[in-house]
């Protein structure tokens, strides 16, 4: 297939074969462009590598959700007994880590394969090499064996994503692992210290505890910084009740390997200014991710980055160089989520090759933290709503609720909570929906579409719920924070 812009090898070269890059490439090819995709995985400090598909498929969303599911199933086996299932020796039920990781990795590999087959079918050239700019229209791909391939393109999209950040703590690089490694770890992680209380740290500590491993989280400042803090507190309380050990206001000082093979972690409590130590089998760093722009040789193309974090501050996904664009986690100030990258990548391709003018709407993007008790939300947090509109202009409806299925196995309902943040003025436009509880991801999704239709509290209150579900609680909300009334439910069905 000859390119439309005939003086170049390709109409489009995409650097990065992850969620954003592949979506952009596939849409571009649908619109008649000749496209090449570069993808390369530099091994993690522990030596882990993986195939085509990016972070989400290999070391992110997919394996994470599968491990979260594995942990939930462990809980379900327990609950099942209350429902009459006869389990011979419940105390002997345990998870086989190597069976779990094999099953997860088999699935990941099948997705890698289907992705490659799909690129081939769509006639997208796939180059397994690390991309570097030679100039604004030329990219050099360096293969694992050192050989190089030069590609010229009319347009280039940077979709290189990011990797876990390893800080300058003695022993971190030598002994710690990250989310890059946990999903294919060849020995069970054992007693684990998770450094970081963002969603990655919480989710990892959560499923590790659920699978039967001792888990400790070192929290530098707050849990889930940037998220609604009232909801973050509910998740923290639930995880504490589950037996996860939180060390608040603590930062690691050093990691040493002892003669018995275990890792001795020393940390400083910044509040009391004291030092503490404990021995672990594994230390998992989850203190943030950095954009992979350093290896791109961006100066050769003249593309600017934000100096603090290497991210690209694009306007409508276009960099300061007119034919070079960026999409996905590499973008400054945008949600680092797969569906965001996919959607933005597709719209970008339509603007590049399809005469579309539609820009990506980054507002009201729904998301879910898959902690042991899940947290789903769409729209503004309470703090951000107050910041934007002022406390007097908003109303918060809140409630605790009791999932029907929890009564029989006597599961704790202490942290089953939801709230809706609205403008006070009629018809009370909904600014944010927040839900902590089972199946949060599935529940919030539909409400994201409702938000796009300018959902108001009047509409929500006039929506008939499905019973018995937990989602219907959004239609039953009627107690406001400002009223001071008790948000605990009296009983079901009224």
């Amino acid at each position: 297939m000859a390119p439309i812009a005939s003086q170049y090898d390709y109409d489009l070269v995409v650097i990065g074969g992850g969620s954003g890059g592949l979506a952009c490439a596939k849409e571009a090819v649908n619109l008649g462009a000749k496209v090449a995709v570069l993808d390369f995985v530099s091994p993690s400090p522990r030596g882990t590598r993986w195939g085509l598909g990016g972070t989400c498929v290999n070391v992110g969303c997919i394996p994470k959700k599968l491990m979260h599911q594995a942990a939930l199933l462990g809980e379900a086996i327990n609950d099942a007994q209350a429902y009459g299932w006869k389990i011979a020796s419940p105390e002997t039920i345990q998870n086989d880590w190597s069976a779990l990781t094999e099953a997860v990795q088999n699935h990941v590999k099948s997705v890698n394969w289907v992705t490659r087959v799909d690129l081939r079918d769509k006639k997208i050239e796939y180059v397994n090499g690390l991309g570097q700019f030679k100039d604004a229209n030329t990219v050099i791909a360096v293969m694992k064996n050192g050989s190089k391939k030069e590609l010229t393109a009319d347009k280039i999209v940077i979709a290189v994503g990011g990797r876990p950040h390893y800080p300058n703590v003695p022993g971190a690089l030598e002994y710690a692992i990250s989310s890059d490694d946990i999903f294919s770890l060849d020995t069970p992680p054992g007693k684990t210290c998770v450094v970081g209380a963002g969603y990655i740290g919480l989710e990892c500590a959560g499923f590790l505890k659920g699978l039967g491993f001792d888990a400790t989280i070192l929290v530098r400042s707050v849990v889930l910084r940037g998220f609604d803090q009232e909801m973050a507190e509910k998740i923290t309380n639930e995880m504490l009740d589950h037996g996860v050990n939180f060390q608040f206001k603590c930062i690691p000082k050093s990691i040493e390997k002892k003669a018995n093979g275990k890792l001795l972690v020393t940390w400083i409590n910044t509040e009391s200014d004291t030092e503490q130590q404990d021995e672990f089998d594994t230390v998992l760093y989850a203190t943030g991710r950095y954009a992979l722009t350093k290896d791109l040789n961006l100066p050769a193309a003249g593309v600017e980055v934000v100096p603090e974090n290497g991210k690209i501050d694009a306007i409508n996904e276009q960099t300061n160089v007119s034919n070079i664009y960026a999409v996905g986690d590499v973008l400054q100030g945008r949600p680092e989520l797969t569906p965001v990258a996919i959607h933005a990548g597709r719209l970008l391709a339509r603007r590049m090759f399809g005469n579309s003018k539609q820009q990506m709407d980054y507002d009201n993007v729904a998301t879910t933290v898959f902690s042991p008790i899940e947290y789903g939300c769409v729209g503004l947090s309470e703090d951000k709503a107050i910041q934007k509109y002022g406390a007097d202009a908003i109303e918060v409806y809140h409630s605790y609720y009791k999932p029907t299925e929890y009564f029989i196995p006597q599961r704790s309902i202490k942290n089953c909570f939801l709230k809706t943040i609205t403008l006070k003025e009629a018809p009370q436009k909904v600014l944010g929906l927040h839900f902590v509880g089972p199946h949060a991801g599935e529940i919030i999704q539909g409400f994201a579409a409702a938000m796009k239709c300018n959902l108001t509290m009047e509409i929500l209150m006039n929506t008939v719920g499905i019973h018995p579900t937990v989602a219907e609680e959004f239609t039953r909300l009627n107690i406001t924070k400002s009223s001071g009334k008790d948000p605990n439910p009296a009983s079901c069905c009224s």
Partner: protein
Amino acid sequence: MSASLARGLRSPIRRILNISQQSREISTSLIHNDTIVVKNNDDFVDKVMNSDRPVIVNFHAEWCDPCKILTPKLRELIEPLDNLDLAVVDVEDHAELVHTFEVKAVPAVIAIRDGLVVDKFIGLVDATMIENLIKKLSGNKPNKEKEKETAS
């Protein structure tokens, strides 16, 4: 038995006349009916497309659990037969074959006779379907009945 040995002799001889072969591979086909391991595209054309015998081509992957059930089952049923071959293709190593035969999922079973695709299954199929396919291609009854015949 000697008749089938003679039949077995003729096809590799034809292959020698057509394309140069490594002697290792020819002797394997003469002595007993080993599963064909496809090395590259030319190998496939030679051993499968140009074969006088029908070949069941099993597309297989290490990460595919149903494949781990189907492939051994196919070997068990086909290896004893002398007028039907089995070729196992690892999809990770043979991207072009995967593309040519439009294999979108594994396990996939493609029956080839005289260079043409005569049947295709995707997914784990039960023993009855495999046996019917074998019957269709080789005119053979499934293995157990054949043994009874030669014994009597």
